[in-house]
């Protein structure tokens, strides 16, 4: 039996650029370059490794939801080695919160068909880290999340989850939703051959109608949270910076004492 893996990826504003909000308080995607979220590269990597471990009996589909540019995130994952892509794009998706986004992703995953869904631990823009859990809740399958190690054997996914106070070994029967951390293993770079091959791979484009979703359930209309204000934080007023001339440590201690930390 073939293992159908779907990797969910997000196209995000580059963190090294000037990120900000548009007039409607959604993320500004015009003012800054986008790219495949770094944390999703780990998800693509683990999906490919799981597929490789399954021999020829696996397929990896990259899925993204987002505006036209988001297709670039799919292309990157295809050049890393994923087999095919799905891009969900619809003007009515603009302004979706995580509830709306998880509804769209869940519908698309179901339509694509899956045994295993692999996600990154969080996006690098919203950084909520809850989409994998919401996906599991909506799909009615186990979540095996925040894994630093993952493997699939005989229809069971297992992995290690490192929490604040304990490290846990988890397992669940497929189908399941997995998320992986940046400790799961360095993501591969696309090879020239991979980049050339990616150009020939198929990327399907779906909209809300194809997913049988009502526009009222997504986008700003379907958002259950509302951002009232987004204010650019004033740059921290320049502090005192002094050169160490042998007494640097003493001066820091004085500063800490003046702020009552010592």
């Amino acid at each position, binding site marked *: 039996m073939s293992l159908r893996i779907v990797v969910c990826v997000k196209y995000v504003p580059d963190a090294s650029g000037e990120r900000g909000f548009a007039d409607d308080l959604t993320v500004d995607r015009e003012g800054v370059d986008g790219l495949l979220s770094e944390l999703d590269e780990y998800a693509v990597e683990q999906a490919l490794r799981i597929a490789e471990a399954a021999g020829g009996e696996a397929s990896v589909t990259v899925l993204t939801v987002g505006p036209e540019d988001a297709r670039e995130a799919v292309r990157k994952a295809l050049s890393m080695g994923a087999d095919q892509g799905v891009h969900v794009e619809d003007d009515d998706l603009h302004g979706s919160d995580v509830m709306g986004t998880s509804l769209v992703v869940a519908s698309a995953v179901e339509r694509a068909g899956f045994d295993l869904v692999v996600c990154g631990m969080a996006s690098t823009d919203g950084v909520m880290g809850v989409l994998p859990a919401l996906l599991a809740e909506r799909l009615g399958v186990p979540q095996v999340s925040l894994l630093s190690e993952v493997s699939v054997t005989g229809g069971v996914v297992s992995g290690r989850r490192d929490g604040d106070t304990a490290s846990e070994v988890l397992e669940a029967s497929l189908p399941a939703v997995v998320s992986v951390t940046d400790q799961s293993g360095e993501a591969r770079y696309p090879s020239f051959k991979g980049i050339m091959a990616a150009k020939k791979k198929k990327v399907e484009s779906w909209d809300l109608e194809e997913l049988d979703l009502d526009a009222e359930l997504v986008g700003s209309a379907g958002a259950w949270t509302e951002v009232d204000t987004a204010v650019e934080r004033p740059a921290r007023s320049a502090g005192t910076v002094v050169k160490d001339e042998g007494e640097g440590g003493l*001066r820091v201690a004085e500063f800490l004492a003046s702020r009552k930390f010592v």
Partner: protein
Amino acid sequence: MADVLVVVDHVEGSVRKPTLELLTVARRLGTPVAVALGAGAAQTVEVLAGHGASRILVSEAGEYADFLVVPKVDALHQAVKRVDPVAVLTVSSGENKEIAARLALRLESGVITDAVDVEAGDEGPVAVQSAFAASYTTRSRVNRGIPVITVKPNSAPVEPAAAAGAVEELAVEFSPAARGTRVVSRSARESTGRPELTEAAIVVSGGRGLGSGENFALIEALADALGAAVGASRAAVDAGWYPHAHQVGQTGKSVSPQLYIASGISGAIQHRAGMQTSKTIVAINKDAEAPIFDLADYGIVGDLHTVVPQLTEEINKRKA
């Protein structure tokens, strides 16, 4: 006054400090009702009552330890039905955020994560968040259902407040999904005797400038002098100098302590993303051009190998 459900973070009955901060936040919105789940839950009652919990719902079922996340979602769902609160608050952590989101979905409510403060507003709680590596501050609301909000540690002071603390047994009926993800084994993280990074009031971090893993001893000595947690930059972690659990930054942990001391850390955007909301920032770096100095309330341009030991010694002297 309306009830606010507060999810208790505890380790075998010992309540973690961020939960006490959460009770302070909850009192701004209404009357706190606490829910404590798992082994030792009943032992949390006294401290919760001493910090404003009017009622404490307790469930010690084994499912919380044996299976991941969903048993707790089931329990909170049933607690919400019993209490009918105006909001549900929980401490931001990887697991709690997942629990909060699944609970919100079941309640058909919006969820807000990583609030750095929560205010009482005319249309319900207003969550203050920090976005894009703390370059923006946003105010958000849940506009449907019972707001479920996760709040970061160090967002409010701990304030004792005597309350009734009436204990109620919460008998939870688990859903079939609750047993979906088995916890095959669990090993407690080795205790360093230092505070947990994400909830520490003071964090001392080291980076590439340390030059070696052995030199983290300088950082640890300073941390111990201040009763602080130890952090590390990604460069230091990737070099194998310090365990990943201590990584501060975009792909590590996000911290928001009263005081953050960065030593030998240049302050790349990925690191700043994880520490920029610290209340007071001190930087020690030999490169005067390091971006970390743009954030620092106090900076020393100098060699950390001499500055840090001198600082540690002076603090120990002042404490003596």
